[in-house]
C-alpha cells in the first residue's frame, strides 16, 4: 500500500516501535467497589474495563447449571464512542458475540471451575477506546479482574495479537497495522506451563512461517505476563498496607 510502510528499512513500525516491542501497559485493579472484581487496563491507546461477578447462583435457566463445575458467562461490548466511526450498538452484533464466546473459551481453560459446581461466574468486558488488539487487551484486563475477585486460576492468562510483515513477526498490532493487510494471529497463553488457551487466525499465511509467528506470540505473551504480575504484586502491597493499619 503506497505511503503506509508497516515496517521501515531500519526496522521501525508506524508508531516507532521495533518489531518485537509491546505497547505500554498500564493497569489498575479494584476500580469499582460494587463488583466482586474489577480491573482497568490500557495497552497503548486501547483501553478496556473488565468486571467480574461471582461465583454466584446460576441466573435464568436453571437447566444451564453444570453439576460438577461452574459456568462461565462472558459479555464483550464496546462503548459507542470507542471507535473512530461511532458504533450504533454496543453489543449484540455478530462480532461481539463471537468475541464473547472466545473469552468464555479462554477462561474455561484457566479457571478452576471444578471448585464451584452449580454456580456461575460472570465476566463483563467493555472497550472504552479501540486501537487494535481488542481481544488481547480484554483477556489481560479480565485476568486482572479475576485475580481481584479472588477466583482461583491455574495461571495468568495473557494474550497478544501478532502479525507477519516482510518475513518479520510484529508483536502487539495496533489498529492501522491490523487493517493494513497483515496476517494477524491472536494467542492466549498460560505462561508458566506454556499452554495455549486460544489460538485464532483468519488470514493467509504460508505454513513455513507459522512456527515463527507462534514463537513470537508466545514470547510477547510472556512479556505481558511479567507486567501483569508486577501490577498484581503492587496492588497487593497497597491493599495489605492499608489493611495492616
Amino acid at each position, binding site marked *: 500500500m503506497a505511503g503506509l510502510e508497516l515496517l521501515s528499512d531500519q526496522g521501525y513500525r508506524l508508531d516507532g516501535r521495533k518489531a518485537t516491542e509491546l505497547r505500554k501497559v*498500564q493497569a*489498575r485493579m479494584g*476500580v*469499582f*467497589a*460494587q*463488583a466482586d472484581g*474489577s480491573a*482497568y487496563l*490500557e495497552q497503548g*491507546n486501547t*483501553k478496556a*474495563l473488565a*468486571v467480574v*461477578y461471582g461465583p454466584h447462583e446460576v*441466573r435464568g435457566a436453571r437447566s444451564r447449571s453444570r453439576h460438577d463445575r461452574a459456568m462461565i*458467562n462472558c*459479555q464483550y*461490548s464496546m*462503548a*459507542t*464512542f*470507542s*471507535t*473512530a466511526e*461511532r458504533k450504533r450498538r*454496543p*453489543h*449484540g452484533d455478530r462480532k461481539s458475540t463471537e468475541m464473547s464466546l472466545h473469552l468464555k473459551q479462554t477462561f474455561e481453560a484457566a479457571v478452576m471451575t471444578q471448585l464451584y459446581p452449580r454456580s456461575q461466574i*460472570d465476566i*463483563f468486558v*467493555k472497550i*472504552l*477506546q479501540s486501537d487494535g488488539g481488542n481481544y488481547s487487551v480484554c483477556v489481560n484486563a479480565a485476568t486482572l479482574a479475576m485475580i481481584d475477585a479472588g477466583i482461583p486460576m491455574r495461571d495468568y492468562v495473557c494474550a497478544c495479537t501478532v502479525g507477519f510483515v516482510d518475513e518479520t513477526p510484529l508483536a502487539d498490532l495496533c489498529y492501522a497495522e491490523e487493517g493494513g493487510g497483515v496476517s494477524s494471529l491472536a494467542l492466549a497463553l498460560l505462561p508458566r506451563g506454556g499452554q495455549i488457551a486460544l489460538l485464532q487466525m483468519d488470514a493467509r499465511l504460508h505454513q513455513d512461517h507459522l512456527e515463527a509467528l507462534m514463537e513470537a506470540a508466545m514470547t510477547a505473551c510472556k512479556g505481558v505476563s511479567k507486567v501483569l504480575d508486577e501490577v498484581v504484586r503492587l496492588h497487593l502491597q497497597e491493599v495489605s498496607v492499608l489493611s495492616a493499619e
Partner: protein
Amino acid sequence: MATVQVSEAEKVYILHGIRDDLRVDGRGCEDYRHMEIETDVVSNTDGSAKVTLGHTAVLVGIKADIGKPRPGVPNEGYLEFFVDCSANATPEFEGRGGEELGTELSNTLYKVFNNKHSVDLKSLCISAGEHCWVLYVDVLLLQCDGNLYDAISVAIKAALFNTKIPKVHISADEEGGKEIELSDDPYDCMRLDVENVPCIVTLCKVGHRHVVDVTLQEKACSVASLIISVTHTGTVTCTRKVGGGSLDPESIFEMTEAGKRVGKALHAPLMKLLQQEESLGKTRQKVGFLG
C-alpha cells in the same frame, strides 16, 4: 435500576434518621456525596467527561458529526442521546436487560438538553437547511449507586464544556454544490457555551421529608421522586415525577423550591472547577481510571 433489598427494621432506621436530618452516612438532607469530575478521558472523542458521585460512575463521550438539519428548524443543529446501561454496573443489565432503563434515561435527557434554551443550537448550524453539526452524546453507566440523573447531567455539562468542534470552511465546487472543508489544525476549533446548560436534581420523598442524592438503600425506602432540571439562574426548565407512589401538591411545591436552591448552588462550583481544569492545559496529568 439495580435494587437492594432493605428489611423493615432498616427502613424504619433510615426514615427516623432522615426525619432528624441525619442520614446513614452522616449527610444532611440536601448534601451531595463526594463528587469527582474529570474531562478529556477518551482521546478519540470530541469531548468527554467522567463523573463519580459516591459509588455511581458515569462516562460521557461526545462525537460531532455533520448531518442534515431537522425539517422544522433549518438553521439549528441538534443533539442525539444514547444511554448504555452496561453490564459492569450489575449483572441484571446483561444483554438486553439494561435497555429499558437506558431508554427511559435518554428520553428524559432529550427533553432536558435538546432545546435551544439549554444549548445554543444555532451555533451548530453550518449552512441553513443543508448541513449542521449533530452532537452524538453517549452516556456509559459504569456503576450504579442511586442518583443517576444528577451524575449524568453533571457529566454531560462537563463533556459539552470540553467539546471541541472543528471549524468548517464552505467553498463552492465545480458543479455548483457546496464543499465542506474541515480545518486541519487540531487547535482551530469552536467551543460551546455551556452557561445555560441545566443540571438535574433528583429529590426523593422519604417519610415526610425530601432528600437530595439518594443512595440505593434510601431509594428503596422512598415512595416517589421528583426530577427537576435547574439552570444557573435558578430557572426550572423541566420537571418530572417518577416512581410508583403519589405526592401531594404541597410536597411538590416544597420539593421544587428545594430543588431550585440546590441546583442553583451546584452550577457555580462546577464551572469554576471546569475552568480550573482547563487552565492547567497541557500540564494536567490525565488520571482517568488509573488513579
